[in-house]
């Protein structure tokens, strides 16, 4: 079940809860986020956005805007190269650069309300706003389509004339809005359904939801006269920003340096660019730095939410609870350009179950809504909502406890995953047991309360990372990596370096370098940072230790094998030289010049073998039958975390994912009017959970180490958002006695369901 690591079992730093190294700056308001930075002489940039959900751009006349005093530049798609379609690995998943470029600045057509059509740079916000109002755009409006099933119908308005569905047995000859079909088949579902004792089947609907980071996108960009560009940007990856800006603007990567600001939340939504290429284009045209900050309305109208979806799940089981057949069909909104997370959803939908026969089909469908962007375990929560609701109904029909049903069909080490590979070193059964045996699960419910259980899975990734460690002359260490800190990873980097070097964590200063100061790193996301970048940090520390041992070996005139590094000092184990006193890191650092030069090491790697994460959640809801208002009265989340480097921040990831999932289940949704415009583009009506909506969120961390990571860490950030949608929906089923299969479960929806029962 689990492998032991050949590391000392006593850890001094890893597993403790030190104060984060950037803490003082963050609690005093000193830390600089995207909008907190300014460059001398900067202009204010603003974007003109389409008021139509779907239209041809007939003409753009910016002459009156250019003539306004104080306006220094106006750009449109004419100022960007017309890219050929090209897939590029700049972000995490491959992105089509042409689509990215068209999303950043519309060319020929606008595809959603909020789509950028022009931008201005001016001496003040007031002048910039006035300039926008003077740009005359003539549109030819076209019919639009918002929801996924209407977008799939043969008479739907077509967004892209050259979109022919990929992945079908016979390629179609007519363009449609269906970009791709995914299909995964195992065994013979029809035969298995025919012999099943119990069958459940239902249709599930979810709405588009936004990542909801509190910090809107912001950047400052400067194009110097020699073509060198500087960008200050709040993003999940400064190297991704550099690559995308270079590609979208037709620049050399070496011409751009991107400095990562502190980031006020990302959750996947900041793994792409919206403003940076526009700011650079405006800076080039105006000869000044340009600062651009999105409003909250811009964020909702023009940055990627995740998909709304329509899903169908059918499960068949024997009376002993063995699930023998499953069909899952997922139809996901991609927004204006292809690339919804339906592919990942297809792979994760049945990942927790060992089922012999299944058919999973997924459809990636474009719609006149903002291009979807990654949102924490992209696709997985949506599919899990449907599958876990169906499993819950199956448990009821079988008369089985919901955890027992999942244990009966659980994947374990050696099981072939639904998406292909064989699982090893997973902690899913332990996680199920933790909830089964928990105090929460055994506690009684009160009137109008219901309890729901759901499970979730996410792959977690590894990827390219660079880490450098520099030892100062007093023996303290700087650890430099290229991953923005979105959840406390800086603290973990310092802790892993301190543990390896054997020094107190207070003596380690973690830094996040800009693109010129540290080697390439894949962005922060995919639950990869503690795993992959942590691995690089530990290896860099080990390189430092090897260097130190070699220097000491020369000083002591012993072989390097007779020098061991323990608790931050070199010790001699040569029996012939018993009187050699240990030398500390500080002592060695003080004389580093005389022993060869500064003490420094860098490691680059492409981490493989990331361990997947499993989570099991239980949620208790209380529903007010008169108002439909729903409270979460208790919530416990168990998760296989590998090893919690800094337990507080691992708990924090779990709690944060739960809160987002609860909001997704109960209240969040994009609401569009008949013209395809978002009606609730603000935090008042796009209702995310507030402090009074939630109880304390209990977490149980199961540690089944991943042997690939020096301390056994697995990614933890994404799995927590996968179970809550169904945990809440299953609790609702328990509370009101009715299955609600359409999210969000807002009070009006709950009341309508209750009323339907009366009638």
């Amino acid at each position, binding site marked *: 079940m689990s492998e032991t690591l050949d590391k000392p079992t006593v850890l001094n730093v890893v597993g403790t*809860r030190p*104060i*984060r190294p*950037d*803490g*003082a700056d*963050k*609690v*005093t*308001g*000193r*830390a*600089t*986020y995207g*909008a*907190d930075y300014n460059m001398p002489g900067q202009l204010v940039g603003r974007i003109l956005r389409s008021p139509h959900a779907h239209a041809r751009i007939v003409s753009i006349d910016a002459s009156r805007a250019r003539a306004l005093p104080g306006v220094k530049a106006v750009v449109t798609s004419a100022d960007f190269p017309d890219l050929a379609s090209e897939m590029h690995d700049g972000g995490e998943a491959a992105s089509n650069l042409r689509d990215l470029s068209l999303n950043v600045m519309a060319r020929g057509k606008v595809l959603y309300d909020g789509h950028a059509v022009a931008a201005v740079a001016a001496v003040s916000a*007031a002048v910039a706003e006035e300039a926008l109002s003077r740009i005359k755009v003539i549109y030819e409006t076209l019919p639009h389509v918002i929801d996924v099933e209407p977008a799939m119908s043969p008479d739907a308005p077509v967004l892209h004339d050259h979109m022919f569905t990929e992945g079908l047995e016979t390629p179609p000859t007519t363009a449609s809005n269906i970009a791709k079909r995914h299909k995964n088949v195992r065994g013979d579902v029809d035969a298995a359904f025919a012999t099943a004792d119990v069958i459940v089947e239902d249709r599930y609907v979810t709405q588009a939801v936004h*990542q*909801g*980071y*509190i*910090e*809107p996108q912001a950047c400052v960009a400067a194009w110097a006269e020699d073509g060198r560009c500087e960008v200050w940007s709040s993003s999940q990856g400064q190297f991704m920003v550099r690559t995308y800006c270079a590609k979208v603007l037709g620049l050399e990567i070496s011409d751009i340096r991107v400095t990562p600001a*502190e*980031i*006020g*939340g*990302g*959750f996947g939504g900041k793994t792409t660019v919206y403003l940076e290429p526009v700011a650079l284009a405006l800076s080039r045209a105006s000869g000044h730095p340009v600062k651009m*900050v999105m*409003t*909250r309305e811009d964020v909702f109208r023009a940055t990627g939410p995740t998909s709304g979806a329509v899903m169908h799940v059918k499960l068949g089981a024997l009376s002993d609870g063995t699930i023998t057949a499953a069909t899952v069909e997922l139809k996901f909104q991609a927004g204006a350009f292809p690339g919804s997370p339906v592919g990942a959803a297809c792979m994760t939908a049945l990942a927790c179950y060992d089922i012999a026969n299944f058919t999973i089909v997924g459809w990636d469908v474009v719609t006149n809504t903002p291009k979807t962007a990654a949102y924490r375990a992209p696709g997985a929560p949506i599919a899990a909502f449907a599958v876990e609701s169906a499993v819950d109904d199956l448990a009821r029909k079988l008369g089985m406890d919901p955890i027992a049903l999942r244990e009966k069909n659980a994947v374990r080490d050696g099981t072939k995953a639904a998406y292909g590979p064989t699982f090893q070193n997973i902690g899913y059964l332990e996680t199920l047991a933790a909830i089964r045996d928990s105090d929460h699960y055994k506690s009684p419910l009160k009137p109008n309360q219901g309890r729901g259980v759901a499970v979730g899975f996410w792959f977690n990734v590894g990827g390219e990372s660079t880490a450098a460690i520099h030892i100062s002359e007093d023996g303290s260490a700087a650890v430099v990596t290229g991953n923005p800190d*979105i*959840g*406390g990873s800086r603290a973990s980097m310092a802790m892993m370096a301190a543990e390896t070097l054997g020094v107190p964590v207070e003596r380690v200063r973690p830094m996040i370098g800009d693109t010129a100061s540290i080697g390439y790193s894949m962005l922060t996301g995919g639950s990869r940072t503690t795993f992959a970048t942590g691995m690089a940090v530990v290896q860099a520390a080990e390189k430092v230790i090897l260097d130190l041992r070699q220097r000491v070996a020369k000083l002591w005139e012993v072989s390097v094998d007779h020098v061991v590094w323990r608790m931050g000092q070199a010790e001699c184990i040569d029996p012939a030289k018993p009187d050699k006193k240990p030398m500390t890191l500080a002592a060695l650092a003080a004389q580093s010049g005389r022993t060869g030069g500064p003490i420094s090491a860098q490691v680059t790697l492409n981490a493989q073998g990331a361990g997947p994460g499993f989570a099991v959640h239980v949620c208790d809801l209380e529903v007010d039958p008169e108002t439909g208002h729903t409270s979460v009265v208790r919530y416990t989340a168990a998760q296989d975390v590998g090893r919690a480097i*800094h337990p*507080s*921040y691992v*708990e*924090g*990831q779990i*709690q*944060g994912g*739960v*809160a*987002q999932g609860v909001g997704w289940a109960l209240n969040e949704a994009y609401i569009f009017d008949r013209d395809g415009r978002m009606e609730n583009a*603000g*935090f*008042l009506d796009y209702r*995310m*959970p*507030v*402090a*009074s*909506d*939630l109880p*304390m*969120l209990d977490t149980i961390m199961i540690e089944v180490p991943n042997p690939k990571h020096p301390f056994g860490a697995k990614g933890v950030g994404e799995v927590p958002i996968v179970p809550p949608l169904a945990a809440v929906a299953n609790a609702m089923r328990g509370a009101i006695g009715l299955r609600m299969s359409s999210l969000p479960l807002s009070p009006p929806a709950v009341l309508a369901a209750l009323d339907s029962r009366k009638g």
Partner: protein
Amino acid sequence: MSKIHITTTVNGDPAEFLASPGMTLLDALRDELGLTGAKEGCGSGDCGACSVMLDGRLVCSCLVLAPEVEGCRVETIEGMAQGGQLHPLQQKFLEHAALQCGFCTPGLLVAAKALLDAHPDPTEVEARYWLAGNLCRCTGYDKIIRAVMDAAAELRQERAA
């Protein structure tokens, strides 16, 4: 339209700046006075990231016009730590890991201090409702509430001593 000269007190010190009539207090703090601790999360008073104290009252600075603070007393996150010492709330936030990205933290700390100044012994429910005007997307509020309750206990002890 010409700008208005505003004289006010910020974190106990006199401050002055030029404001256009429609400028918000938030913009004045960030752009005129260089105090970027207060953040704009929504611009419509719904997220609380811009929370400051105005004459002892908790407000969203994005909903206050800059000219309104003429002659008033403004307190921001930058004034919470005194003489190089973190306020117990700030310290407890760090100890309890009550922040992840940290963007909502200044607003939350200002709001939490306003709570404890007015109600030194809140229940968990009272704390949650008081802080319901401050959105956090990272933490799920659990550790924030624990930090606030712990700071409240410590402050009560300090007063008793």
